[in-house]
C-alpha cells in the first residue's frame, strides 16, 4: 500500500487537523491550569510564611529582641527537619540568629537563590519575606523545591497526555484513511476490470459507510449497464438475423429479374417481390428506430390531454371490418364516457393498434377480441382481451423483448417488434403492461397511473349519474 496515498487520504487529513486542534486546545488549557496551580501553591507558601511571622511577632512583642533571637535559635536547631529560611538581623544588617548570612532586601520576593548556613547547607530557590520590626529585621522563607516539583510533574503529565492523544488521533486517521484507500482501490480495480470487458465484476461491499454506499450504487449501475449491454448484444444479433432473411430474398429476386431480362422475359414480378422485401426491411428498421427513440426520450414536454375513449372507438371501427374478414369479431365494451390521460396521442394510437393487431393476427378464426377502458380509483386502464391460444406463463415476460416470437408463430407474418414497441410506449407514459390469462386466451392490460380525471360512467349515468373516476 502506498503510504503517500494513505497520508493524502481525506480521513488522515481530517485527523491531522483534529490533532492540531487538540495540541492548540491542550496548550491553552495547560497554560491556564498551570497558572492556576502556581497561584494556589504560592498562596499556600505565603500562608505558611505568614503564620510563622505572626507567631514570631507575638514572641517579639512579649520579650523583645532577646526572646526573638532565642526563639529563632531554638527553631533553627539541628533537629529541625523543615528546610526553610529563617533569620533575624539588627538595624545595621548584622546577623543575630538564623541560617542565612546576608540580609535580603525588604518585602516579599517570589524566588531568591540562597544557600543556607545550617546543617542542611542547602542551595535552593526560596520564597522570602523580610519584615522590619522596631529594632530587628525578620526574614522568613520557604523552600520552593516541592512547589517546583509539583509544577514540573503537572507539565509532564500534560505533555504526555497531549502527545498520547495526538498520536492516537493520527493513528485513527491513518487507519481510517487506509481502510478508505483499500475500498477505493477495490472500486478502482473493479471499474478497471469492467472497462476491460469483464462486465460481471462487482465491488465487494462489507460496511455501511459513505464509500460502501457509493460502491452499492456503482454495483447497481454496473448491473444495469451489463444488462443493457447484454440486451444490446442480443438485440444486435437478433436484428442481424431478422434482417438477413428479407435481404437475401431481395437479392435473389433482383438476380432473378436480371436473368429474366437477359432471357427477354418480363422481370416485373421479380422486381415487385424485391420491392416488397425491401419495404418489409424498411418497416423493421422503422420499428427498431422508433423503439430506440422512444426509449431514449425522457420528460413529458410534448404530452397533452388525450382521451382514450374516442381513440378506441375509432380503432374499433377501423379494425372491426378486418376482424370480420378473418372470421373474428372485435368489440368495444361500453365503459366511461371519457378516459383522459396525459400522453402523446399518436404514440398511444400506435400502441393500441399494435395490441389490437397482435390479438387479430394470433387468434384463430371465430375468436372474439374485446376492448375495454376502465377508470379505476388511481389509474386508467385499457384491456385488450382475446379468446385465442394465449401465451404460456413462462414466456410472458419475454414477449416484450425485441424480436422475440413464440415458436408456434414462426410462420405467421410479423417482426416480433410489435410488443417491444408497445412496452417502449407504455414505459414512456409511465404505464404498466400486464399479461394475464383470459381463460381462454390472453388479456393485455395497460394501466396508466395517476392521471385520472373526473369521468362520468355511461352505464351508471342512468341511475343517477354516479362518478366513476376521481378528480
Amino acid at each position, binding site marked *: 500500500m502506498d503510504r503517500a496515498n494513505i497520508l493524502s487520504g481525506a480521513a488522515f487529513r481530517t485527523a491531522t487537523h483534529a490533532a492540531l486542534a487538540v495540541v492548540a486546545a491542550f496548550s491553552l488549557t495547560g497554560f491556564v491550569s498551570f497558572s492556576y496551580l502556581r497561584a494556589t501553591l504560592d498562596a499556600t507558601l505565603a500562608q505558611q510564611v505568614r503564620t510563622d511571622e505572626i507567631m514570631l511577632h507575638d514572641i517579639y512583642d512579649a520579650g523583645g529582641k532577646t526572646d526573638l533571637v532565642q526563639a529563632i535559635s531554638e527553631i533553627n536547631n539541628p533537629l529541625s527537619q523543615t528546610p526553610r529560611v529563617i533569620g533575624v538581623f539588627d538595624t545595621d544588617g548584622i546577623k543575630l540568629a538564623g541560617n542565612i548570612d546576608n540580609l535580603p532586601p525588604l518585602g516579599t520576593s517570589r524566588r531568591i537563590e540562597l544557600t543556607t548556613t545550617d546543617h542542611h547547607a542547602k542551595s535552593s530557590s526560596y520564597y522570602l519575606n523580610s519584615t522590619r520590626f522596631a529594632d530587628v529585621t525578620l526574614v522568613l522563607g520557604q523552600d520552593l523545591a516541592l512547589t517546583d516539583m509539583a509544577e514540573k510533574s503537572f507539565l509532564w503529565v500534560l505533555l504526555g497526555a497531549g502527545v498520547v492523544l495526538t498520536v492516537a488521533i493520527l493513528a485513527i486517521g491513518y487507519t481510517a484513511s487506509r481502510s478508505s484507500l483499500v475500498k477505493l482501490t477495490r472500486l478502482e480495480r473493479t471499474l478497471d476490470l469492467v472497462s476491460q470487458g469483464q462486465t460481471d465484476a462487482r465491488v465487494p461491499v462489507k460496511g455501511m459507510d459513505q464509500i460502501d454506499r457509493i460502491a452499492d450504487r456503482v454495483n447497481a449501475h454496473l448491473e444495469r449497464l451489463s444488462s443493457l449491454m447484454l440486451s444490446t448484444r442480443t438485440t444486435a444479433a437478433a436484428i442481424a438475423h431478422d434482417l438477413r432473411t428479407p435481404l437475401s430474398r431481395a437479392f435473389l429476386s433482383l438476380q432473378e429479374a436480371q436473368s429474366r431480362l437477359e432471357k427477354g422475359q418480363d422481370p416485373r414480378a421479380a422486381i*415487385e417481390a424485391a420491392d416488397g422485401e425491401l419495404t418489409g426491411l424498411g418497416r423493421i428498421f422503422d420499428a427498431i428506430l422508433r423503439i430506440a*427513440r422512444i426509449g431514449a426520450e425522457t420528460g413529458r414536454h410534448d404530452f397533452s390531454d388525450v382521451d382514450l375513449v374516442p381513440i378506441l372507438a375509432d380503432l374499433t371501427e*377501423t379494425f372491426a371490418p378486418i376482424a370480420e374478414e378473418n372470421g373474428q369479431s372485435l368489440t368495444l365494451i361500453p365503459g366511461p364516457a371519457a378516459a383522459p390521460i396525459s400522453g402523446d396521442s399518436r404514440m398511444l394510437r*400506435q400502441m393500441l*393498434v399494435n395490441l389490437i393487431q397482435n390479438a387479430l393476427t394470433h387468434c384463430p378464426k371465430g375468436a372474439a377480441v374485446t376492448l375495454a377502458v376502465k377508470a379505476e380509483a388511481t389509474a386508467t386502464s385499457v384491456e385488450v382481451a382475446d379468446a385465442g391460444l394465449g401465451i404460456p406463463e413462462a414466456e410472458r415476460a419475454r414477449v416484450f423483448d425485441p424480436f422475440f416470437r413464440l415458436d408456434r408463430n414462426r410462420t405467421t407474418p410479423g417482426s416480433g417488434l410489435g410488443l417491444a414497441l408497445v412496452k417502449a410506449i407504455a414505459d414512456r407514459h409511465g404505464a404498466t403492461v400486464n399479461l394475464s390469462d383470459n381463460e381462454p386466451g390472453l388479456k393485455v392490460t395497460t394501466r396508466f397511473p395517476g392521471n385520472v380525471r373526473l369521468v362520468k360512467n355511461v352505464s351508471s349515468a342512468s341511475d343517477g349519474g354516479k362518478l366513476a373516476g376521481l378528480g
Partner: protein
Amino acid sequence: MKILLAEDDDRVADFIVNGLSENGHSVERVADGCDALSYCLYNSADLAILDRMMPGMDGLSVLKALRAATNDVPVIFLTALGDVDERVEGLCAGADDYLAKPFHFSELQARVTALTRRRKEMADITVLEVHDLRLDLLARTATRKGQPIDLQSKEFALLDVLMRNAGRVVTRTMLLEQVWDFNFEPGTTVVETHVSRLRAKIDRPFDVPLLHTIRNTGYMMHGPR
C-alpha cells in the same frame, strides 16, 4: 412547375430530378441548406422539397427561416425513417407535407401533385362531386344518382380524401395519415379492407366504377373518360 430540391445525396437527388423532369416539372437541385434558403428567397419556386439532414443548414432551419420571412412556398419535408418527432416538428414549423425516407417515387409524385393543387381547392368547399357521386360535407351525406348511400364515419372520411383529390393518385400512406392519423405502417390490410367496403357501397350497385386502384401506388377517383 418549378420545383426546388434540396438534397445532399447525389444518387437520391438524381432519381428525384429525373422522375420529376419526366413528369414535366423543371427542377433546380441544391445540395445544402444555405443554397436552398437563398434560392427560395431570391427566386420564385412553386414547390420546395427539403431534406431534413443537410450540410450548412438543416431542413428544419431552412423551413423556419422561410416562414419567418413570410415566404409561403409549399414545402414537402423529407425525414429519416423512425424520426417520429421530426415529422411532427416539420409540420409544426410550417411544412405542408412530409415523407419518410426511403420512399417510392410514386409516393413523392402523388404528394407533389396533391400539394400544388391543394391550396386553391381548400377554400369553402361544402360539396364534392365526381361524375354522379355527390358528397355533402355539411350534411355528411353521400348520394349517387340521387340514391342515398349509408356510410360509416371512416368510410365517409376516406371518400372525402379521395374525392378532394379526384383525378389524382392518393397513396396508401397518404390515406393512413389523413384518414386514420397513423404515422406508421400497420401490419394489416387497413386501407385495402376499408377501400373494398367503400367500393361495395359506392361502385358495385352502379354501372360506372369511380374508385380505381393504381397498381403498387394507391387509389384514384375519376369518372368515365
